[in-house]
């Protein structure tokens, strides 16, 4: 106990810095955990407020989870969610590390800043706007792609009803939007690498490619692992805006655009059963939690220092 307070006193400055974040997490992540109880209830309103409503609602056991698994759609949405996220994680990692290295190697620093800002910009756009950007390319009669196809004498494509193109379109749109942000994270840690390492390598006659492979990438690996582990934890969450706004909610594309989040939204937007949507959220976070623990365990087995915990 004494030891505890001594530690507290010793680290007070550091702890004080953590405080705002800790408070935020307490209110927005830990406190709402109590609400997961709603996942096992048939939520009904009570005039005495939220807590009374929870207390008075009927227990329904696992009933709220059933709708997620009751049809073939369960397979489609799980497959789509997982495969898209795996593609986003892998391609996102490769491309953003590559971009970060390219940017760091640019001699003209002003140009590098311009590229970096240009890549960063889409990150701030809302999916609704990105959806309209995509529409300006893919619209049947006024879309840019169909115009270009027209120049080559090809027939226009009905992009919003041909599901075979959408895995590529969604991956491209998502990468376009997300890469700027993650490459800045990698760029920051590249700039933090001790310059003397590169000088020593140059003296030994290492080529640019060798420097990247032997110095930059190994030095980046801790941050790569952290970023990837965090992404794996969210592998069961799909970006709702990407899968709902960009395909314009077109029914004929559902086989390749329906993911867990859009399924839940479409199933419950009219009935508004918050018990069922809570159940879906709980399911997603538990799978995410398990995946993080497992992948962290794997990382630990391979390299103890790189693991998150």
């Amino acid at each position, binding site marked *: 106990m004494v030891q505890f307070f001594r530690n507290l006193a010793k680290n007070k400055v550091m702890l004080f810095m953590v405080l705002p974040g800790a408070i935020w997490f307490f209110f927005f992540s830990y406190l709402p955990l109590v609400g997961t109880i709603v996942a096992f209830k048939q*939520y009904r309103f009570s005039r005495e407020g939220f807590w009374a409503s929870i207390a008075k609602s009927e227990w329904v056991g696992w*009933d709220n989870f059933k709708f997620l698994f009751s049809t073939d*759609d369960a397979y489609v949405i799980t497959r789509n969610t997982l495969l898209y996220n795996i593609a986003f994680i892998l391609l996102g990692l490769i491309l953003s590390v590559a971009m970060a290295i390219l940017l760091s190697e640019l001699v003209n620093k002003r140009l590098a800043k311009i590229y970096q800002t240009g890549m960063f910009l889409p990150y701030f756009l809302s999916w609704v706007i990105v959806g309209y950007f995509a529409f300006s390319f893919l*619209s049947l009669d006024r879309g840019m792609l169909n115009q270009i196809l027209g120049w080559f004498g090809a027939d226009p494509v009905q992009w919003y009803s041909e599901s075979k193109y959408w895995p590529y379109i969604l991956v491209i749109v998502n990468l376009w939007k997300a890469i700027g942000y993650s490459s800045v994270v990698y760029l920051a840690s590249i700039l933090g690498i001790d310059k003397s390492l590169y000088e020593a390598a140059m003296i030994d006659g290492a080529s640019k490619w060798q420097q990247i492979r032997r110095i930059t990438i190994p030095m980046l690996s801790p941050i790569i692992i952290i970023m990837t582990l965090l992404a794996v934890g969210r592998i069961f969450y799909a970006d709702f805006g990407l899968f709902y706004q960009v395909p314009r909610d077109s029914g004929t594309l*559902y086989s390749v655009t329906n993911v867990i989040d859009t399924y839940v939204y479409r*199933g419950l937007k009219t009935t*508004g059963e918050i018990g069922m949507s809570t159940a879906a959220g709980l399911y997603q976070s538990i799978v995410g939690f398990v995946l993080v623990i497992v992948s962290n365990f794997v990382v630990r087995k391979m390299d103890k220092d790189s693991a998150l915990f």
Partner: protein
Amino acid sequence: MSKMKTRFSFVLATLLSLTLVLSACGGSKESAGGGSGTDGDKPVELIWYTIGTPQKDVDKVMTEVSKYTKEKINATIKMKMIDWGDYSQKMQVNVASGEPMDIIFTSSGGFDYVQNARKGAFYKLDDLLDKYGQDLKKTIDPAFLSGSKVDAHNYGIPANKELPQQEVWRFNKNLLDKYKLDTSNIRSLDSLEPLLKTIKEKETGVTAFAMDKNYVPYVPYDYIIQNLPMAVKLDTTDYKIVNILETPEMKEALTTMHKYYKAGYVSPEAATTGSTNDLMTSGNWFLDRAQTQPLADNQWSASYGYPVVSTPASDAIITNTSVQGSIMAISANSEHPEKAMEFLNLLNTDQKLRNMVDSGLEGTHYKKVDDKHIENLPESKNYDMPSYSLGNNMLLYLNPNDPDNKWDEFKKFNSAGTNSPILSFNFDGTKVSSELAAVQNVKEQFWAALMTGTLDPETNLPKAIEKFNQAGLDKVIAEAQKQLDAWRAGGGK
């Protein structure tokens, strides 16, 4: 002198402490006692949530409204507007979290009336209506109050307006005149073909048949749940619920739609088009389908800036959806349900109050032309309210070009409507909620593409039917049939 002063301050102090004690206890006592204690002198503030783009002058108008209501029923009004697209979701959260509120706009479209009544969001109005709503009962069409009962109880006050719903074909009159097209024999979907053909051939750049993704061909059935494929035929005798996609009428309609789609009468992107507003603004359309009300042609023509005419596409049917198109309910957690009911009674019967809420302040937002007609002033852009959602429409002043007998026309229209066989039957989906969620997903997948004719029904209709059954539609229909049979056995109440 000094004695009087002491006595005065003593009285003052007692009064102060009394009010303090009262106001401190007030909150908890009222909520525990089921909302009594309205006889005090202090006016009660009623919080009123309603739908529509928030207007700049709402508070200004409500201050004036409050002065009036304070005098009449000793209550003041605080109005909170939530924008069209957000209303259902935000109200869902507000109600679930117990946000204080007294009056709530609800309807079959925004913040679903029946479901939320069943979930316990609204106060049961039966007794309050008898006690405080006598004037109101006399004013509005009785079909509204009986049609909006849920499990034999009233949970809201419907706005007195057009009662049946009737579908019409609307035509862009400029194009009709240009090609001298005749609409007198138009009624069915098939009858449109020659006209569509003419327009398609002669007018490039005009969408012959304008529609958005919510378009559904008209078939003479009434849906159990809006846009889910369970319905009862309007002239039914056995009250059997069928899958609408399996009916010959729907199959025929979808085949025609697909024919129109392939012929290019329908926009190739109809199934993903959210609204046809830009077509309406530009006038590059020839026909579409809409719901009508008396004098609708005038209204459409005025708002688009070019003449629009219409001819019927269906009979005028009184359905749950039409009765529940606009309802004001009292929140279950209201601390002053009596006052709220008194206010609703006044709003639906008092012309001065109703028009103030609708058009704002005389001299600021509008001016009177004669005793029935008003004209908007430029300031009205800061207080542009949807009329349908704010109570009894038939008290409203008329627009400059409305005929004097506008509301008589409405009454005539209302009495001409026929009741749907399942009017006031409300399906309770609680027992099949996981099936409903799955069915809803199948619906989203196929509905728009089938209804707009994008997909060929020959191959896709069987596919859709099979998917619906996999998702458990047959189970939902069986449950609905059970409830419908019980409802009929109980005398249709």
